[in-house]
């Protein structure tokens, strides 16, 4: 059964592959971090930037009227909205880095960015995947 013999180079290659897999998982599958800042976009243009550490409620006026946003305990949500379907309100809270809330009828989008735990990390605040 000389064909079935595993050679030193095989062990080397398989070892490298397994190490590579672990490294890939470690690099790409980090859990989502708590976001630090909220950027409010109106018609795709940033109009307001607030830290998620201050609990507050505020209004953002879009084409349909005023949407009320609530920030509490590092999370943000649409509290009231003048839109018809209330999708934004029913979406509920968002708190993780890279998450996005939007009210399309009122042209408002909320983008969460930054890492509340480590703000020096490379590429912080970048969105790497959005999923609904």
């Amino acid at each position: 059964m000389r064909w079935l013999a595993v050679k030193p180079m095989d062990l080397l290659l398989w070892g490298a592959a397994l190490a590579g897999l672990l490294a890939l998982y470690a690099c790409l599958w980090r859990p989502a971090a708590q976001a630090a800042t909220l950027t409010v976009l109106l018609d795709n243009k940033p109009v307001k930037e607030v830290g998620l550490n201050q609990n507050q409620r505020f209004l953002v006026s879009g084409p349909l009227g005023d949407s009320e946003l609530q920030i509490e305990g590092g999370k943000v949500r649409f509290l009231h909205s003048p839109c018809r379907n209330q999708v934004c309100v029913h979406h509920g809270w968002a708190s993780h880095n890279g998450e996005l809330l939007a009210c399309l009828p009122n042209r408002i989008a909320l983008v969460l960015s930054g890492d509340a735990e480590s703000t020096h990390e490379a590429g912080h605040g970048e969105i790497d995947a959005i999923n609904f």
Partner: protein
Amino acid sequence: MTSATLQDRQIAGFAALAVVIHILEASVPSPLPGVKPGLANVITLIVLWRHGWVAAAWVAGLRVLVGSLLLGSFMTPTFMLSASGALASIVVLGLTSWVLGTRRPWSPSVYGYALLAAWAHMAAQLWMAWWLFIPHDGLWRLAPVLLMASTVFAAVTGWAAAKVLTWLAQQQERPC
């Protein structure tokens, strides 16, 4: 017109086998796009071992072309991915067998070659998918999962190729 040589016939035979495996495999549902066992690569490995790299490249190329024509996926995204994967794996197999050989003390066995082929196949597919179809960096998050599947299936194809090669060697040693 020159007539087909023995090697031509062998390549055609192996390619036919690979095409059959390719098509059977295409009918098996897959949990994730891009994940499939790649058992047709067993044939590529066997040909690489017994008939050299040129024959293996022919078999892999014919398999992808004929397989896509029979499945009706020629020039579709599926074909692009499959062709880029096959091309990358045959290039990697060629470079490795050229540098390290197949039967020297420091050359990998079929297990090593199966792994190299599977990873090259998956990496090329993923890059192609990113370059042509989904140019979003979020796609790279699939890399660990897809490469893990490749690794598992590489063990399966390596084992199958080793089994067949052993059997073929035994058949040859036995006087008819």
